C-alpha cells in the first residue's frame, strides 16, 4: 500500500475542450478505459454478489448470521470504533505539530508518520509479535502481569492502529500547510486561548479534510488483512475479523458463505466511495 493522493482543493478544470483527435481514436480510448474498468472492477464486484447468492438467499442470510460470522463482524466494529477515533486524534495532533510549529527533526517526524505506508503490513504485524509475544521483548513482563496482547484483541487493535496511522495526518498536513496560521494568530490576538482557537477556527477549516481522512482510515481499518492476520492467531469466534473470517471460510470451500461476508464488506466499500465523493463535492463547493 503506497499511500494515496491527497484531496485536491484547487479549482476544477471547467473549461470546455474541443477534442482535436479523430472520432475513432476517441471511441477506441473510451472503450479501452471502460473495458478495463468493467473487467477489473465491475465484474469482480458483480461476481462477489452472484457467488454470495448462488445457493439462495437463505444460505446468504444464514452465512452472515452464523455465530462465528457475527463475532467477526462485532470484532471488526470494535477495532474500527477504537482505532478510527484514536487515529483521528493522533492525526490532528501530528498535523497541528508539523504545520503550526517549527522545530528540529520535523522532516524526520513527517517521514516516520509515513512509515506505515512504506512497510508491508505483514512486517508491521511481525513487529508487534516480536515486541509482545511470549518470547518477545516485553513477553515475560506481560506474562507476569497476565496481559494478553498477541493472539488477542489488543494486538489486533495495535496492528490496525499502526497500519492506519498515516491516513488522517497525511490528509491534513498539506491542507493545514496551505492554510497557514494567520487565522489562528488572529484568534490569539483577539484574546481566544489555544483550545478555543482550535475549536472555533482550526477545526471548522479542516473539518472536510478530517472527515475524508477518517473515511479512508475507516475503510482500511475494516479491510486490514496482513498485519491483523499475523497477530490474531485466527481463533474462531474470538480473534477473527471479517477479512480473516472470509479467508477461513474460503479455505474450507464454503464459497457461498465466504462471498456472503465479502459482499457485506463490498457494500461498506461502496458506501465509503459515495461518502468520499460527496465530501470531495462539498469541499469543491467551499473552494
Amino acid at each position, binding site marked *: 500500500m503506497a499511500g494515496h493522493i491527497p484531496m485536491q482543493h484547487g479549482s476544477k478544470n471547467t473549461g470546455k475542450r474541443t477534442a482535436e483527435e479523430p472520432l475513432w481514436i476517441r471511441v477506441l480510448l473510451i472503450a479501452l478505459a471502460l473495458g478495463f474498468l468493467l473487467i477489473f472492477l465491475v465484474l469482480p464486484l458483480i461476481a462477489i454478489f452472484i457467488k454470495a447468492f448462488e445457493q439462495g438467499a437463505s444460505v446468504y442470510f444464514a452465512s452472515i448470521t452464523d455465530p462465528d460470522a457475527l463475532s467477526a463482524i462485532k470484532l471488526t466494529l470494535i477495532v474500527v470504533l477504537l482505532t478510527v477515533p484514536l487515529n483521528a486524534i493522533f492525526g490532528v495532533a501530528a498535523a497541528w505539530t508539523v504545520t503550526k510549529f517549527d522545530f528540529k527533526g520535523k522532516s524526520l517526524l513527517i517521514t516516520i508518520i509515513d512509515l506505515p505506508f512504506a512497510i508491508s503490513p505483514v512486517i508491521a504485524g511481525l513487529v508487534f509479535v516480536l515486541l509482545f509475544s511470549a518470547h518477545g521483548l516485553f513477553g515475560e513482563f506481560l506474562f507476569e502481569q497476565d496481559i494478553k496482547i498477541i493472539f488477542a484483541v489488543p494486538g489486533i487493535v495495535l496492528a490496525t492502529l499502526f497500519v492506519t496511522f498515516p491516513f488522517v495526518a497525511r490528509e491534513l498536513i498539506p491542507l493545514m500547510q496551505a492554510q497557514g496560521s*494567520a*487565522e489562528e*494568530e*488572529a*484568534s*490569539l*490576538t*483577539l*484574546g*481566544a*486561548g489555544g483550545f*478555543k482557537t482550535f475549536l*472555533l*477556527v482550526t477545526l*471548522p*477549516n479542516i473539518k472536510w479534510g478530517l472527515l475524508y481522512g477518517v473515511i479512508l482510515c475507516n475503510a482500511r481499518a475494516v479491510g486490514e488483512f496482513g498485519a491483523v492476520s499475523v497477530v490474531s492467531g485466527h481463533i474462531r469466534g474470538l480473534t477473527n475479523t471479517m477479512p480473516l473470517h472470509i479467508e477461513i471460510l474460503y479455505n474450507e470451500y464454503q464459497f457461498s458463505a465466504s462471498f456472503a461476508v465479502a459482499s457485506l464488506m463490498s457494500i461498506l466499500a461502496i458506501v465509503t466511495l459515495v461518502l468520499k465523493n460527496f465530501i470531495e463535492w462539498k469541499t469543491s463547493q467551499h*473552494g
Partner: protein
Amino acid sequence: MSIQIKEVSKTFGSFNALNDINIDIKTGELVALLGPSGSGKTSLLRIIAGLEEADNGVILFGEEDMTHIRTTERKVGFVFQHYALFKHMTVSDNVAYGLKVRPKKERPSKKEIEAKVNELLELVKLDAFADRYPSQLSGGQRQRVALARALAVEPKVLLLDEPFGALDAKVRKELRRWLRRLHDNFHITSIFVTHDQEEALDVADRIVVMNEGKIEQIGSPEEVYDHPNSPFVYDFLGNVNLFQGRLQNGKLLYGNVEIDAPGFESAENQQAVGYVRPHDVTIDREDTSNEAVQAKVVHVHAVGRSVHIELKREDTDQFLEAELTRERYRELELKVGEDVFVKPNQLRVFIPEDYSI
C-alpha cells in the same frame, strides 16, 4: 497607552532579524515602521504583539512589562496583511469573535455584542454586508472587516502589518486616509508596518526607518524626508542624485566643479558622495556659478503637477534626475537632446565607509 521597546534583539538561526532596537512611542501616536523586505519591521511588530518572542530586550506598555505576557492577554489589535479573516464566519461573526470568546464573567451580553458589532460595521461602512462571508467581499472591504474585528476588543494598541499591501493603488490611498481619520478620532496608539515610503510619509506622525535589523532614523515625515541622516534613508525615501567626488578644504570636488560641504572642513583628499533630491536641483541654460555640471536632456516626463527630467552628465555619463515646476519647465523650453547646466542646491555629503545600500 505608550509603548517602549528596549534593546530588543532577535535571530532566526544565523540570520540577525533585529539588532538592539530602541523605540519610545507616545500615547496616541501613529508610528510607521518603514523599511525594505528583510529589514526586520514585521518581526518587530510581531514581537510587540507577542506572536514572536524576542531573544533579548523588554517591551513595556505604559509602565507594565509585557515581555513575557502571552498574546492572548496583551490586548492588542492586530491587522494582518492578508486579512486573516475567519473564512467560515460571516462578517458580523468575525467582528463579534473577540467579544464572544471572552470568559463568561467578562463577556458582554448578546445584545451588547450585537450593538457593538453594528456600531463598528457602521464605522467601517459595511453595515450592509453583515451577513456576507469574507469570500464575497473585495480586498478593501475585507481589510475594513479585519480592522473592525481588531477594534471590537477595544485594544490599547493597534498593530497593522502592511495593512494595505495587497490592495490596488486607488483603494490603498483611500484606505490609508481613512485610517488616518480613524486614528484622529480615536487616538489609539498605533504602529503600522510598510515598505511604501509614500504611505508612511502620508499617514504617520513619526517614521522609524529600518534596514537590516537596525534603526536608521526616527523622526517626523518632514525630518526623515528633508534631513536624512544616512545614505540609506536618502535612497529609500524618495529619489536621489549622487555626486561622487573628493573632499578638500571643506568643499566637495566633483568633475570640474566644487561645492561647499559644511561639516567636513577637516577632511583632506577623501572620497565622498554628495546626495541631492531631484527637486533640489536647478537647471540653467548658462552656467552662472562654478557649481554646475554639464548634462544632456535624455527624457522629459511631463505627467502630473511637476515635470521630471532625466539627464546624462557629459563628463561621467552618469544619469541625473531633476524635478521642475511646470512654470520653470515652460520658461526653459527644454527639449530632449539639449545641453544644460545642472546644479545641486542643497548637497548632503557622506563619506562612503558608513553607507551601505
